[in-house]
């Protein structure tokens, strides 16, 4: 499953001008009351699709309330683009013990890297996942 996910990301990543359909380069699955993968390491501007594979409804809600999927029923999905670097903790409003993290590092297009070093960036960028 993990290998398939990586392959999918690699296939999408090279697209020069991604269509909306190809935008979600990252997927977090909600299964058995857990978010996976976590922590998810992405880059400013990356889009993440959260998919509920459980029989129970869940939410993807930032601890600081900066984003909120509202209710995702079974097979429901929600997409969010992270536009600022930072570490985002989120949880499920219905099952608050379900917790996970998205780590967003600096701009890829020559902009400021903020506080995150290049090493951390290259280790987490999707294009390098094939080597992991």
């Amino acid at each position, binding site marked *: 499953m993990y290998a398939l996910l990586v392959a999918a990301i690699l296939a999408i990543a090279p697209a020069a001008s991604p269509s909306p359909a190809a935008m979600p380069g990252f997927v977090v699955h909600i299964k058995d*009351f857990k978010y996976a993968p976590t922590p998810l390491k992405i880059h400013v501007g990356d889009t993440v699709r959260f998919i509920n594979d459980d*029989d129970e409804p869940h*939410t993807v809600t930032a*601890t600081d309330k900066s984003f*909120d999927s509202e209710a995702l029923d079974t097979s429901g999905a929600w997409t969010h683009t992270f536009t600022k670097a930072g570490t985002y903790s989120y949880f499920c409003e*219905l099952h608050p013990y379900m917790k996970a993290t998205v780590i967003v590092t600096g701009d890829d297009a020559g902009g400021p890297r903020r506080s995150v070093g290049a090493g951390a960036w290259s280790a987490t960028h999707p294009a390098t996942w094939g080597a992991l």
Partner: protein
Amino acid sequence: MKRKDFIEHVSWTGAGIAWTLSASGLMTSVADARGAKNGLSFVQISDSHIGFARPENPDVVGTFKKTIDDINALAVQPSFVVHTGDLTHLSKPEQFDTVKSMLAQLKAPLVVMPGEHDVIGSPDNYLAAFGSKDAPKGWHSFDMNGVHFVVLVNVFNFEIDGKLGQEQLDWVAKDLAAQKSSTPIVVFGHVPLYALYEKWGWTTEDGTAVLAALQRFDAVTVLNGHIHQVIQHTEGNIRFATAASTAYPQPAPGTADKPGPLKVPDNQLLGVLGYRSVQLAMGPATVADHSLAT
């Protein structure tokens, strides 16, 4: 085997409460409601989850209607019916419309509070359906026949576990401070106020502050929902009881990998759903849980 064969009696001294526990897990208790001047009864219903539509109960509207019909058919109508939250499954306006129109069929007055399923995203839809000027944020208290009733909301401030928040804690401290220690106290809230099973979030993170404030009273009853099964617990003068759902059961703590709807054979579903009636009168009072199968 007959249910009677399983009946077990446990008695307390002091404020005096006796619980009768039947095989199905549904419970009857007898509590000393000293201070009750006249007869008083009420009914607790919980976790109707209108909008839920999965194999564990494909007809939650039907089982909720049966619950309401059963309550309306009681020979003596209760002073009020309290719904301890999770009226809806996904906080959607049409789900609130359905549950509100069904609750309007009750002959008795209604007391409501939200569960976490009623405030997904925000409490706006809940408050639009059930908000009142007297309780702008949901929590409130009232007195009836010498009994002081406190309605708590431990889902608006969901962060890690059920949480009341400082504003509500300050309010409840003041509210309880005004009561005599001999006054019987009944507390309602959706999520259990004590750490019933933290691993599944079946706890109120800051509930201990309220429990501490309840210590000085002679007799306290705390009635919650959320876990879709009857579990009773005692801490000193405080008796806790969670309620059955009208929609679907959940596994007992630790008996499954996760909480969530529990599938039982179709012909057993009504037996694990139900409502609770509470009798408070001069002398002993009775709390009884009724399955929809009876």
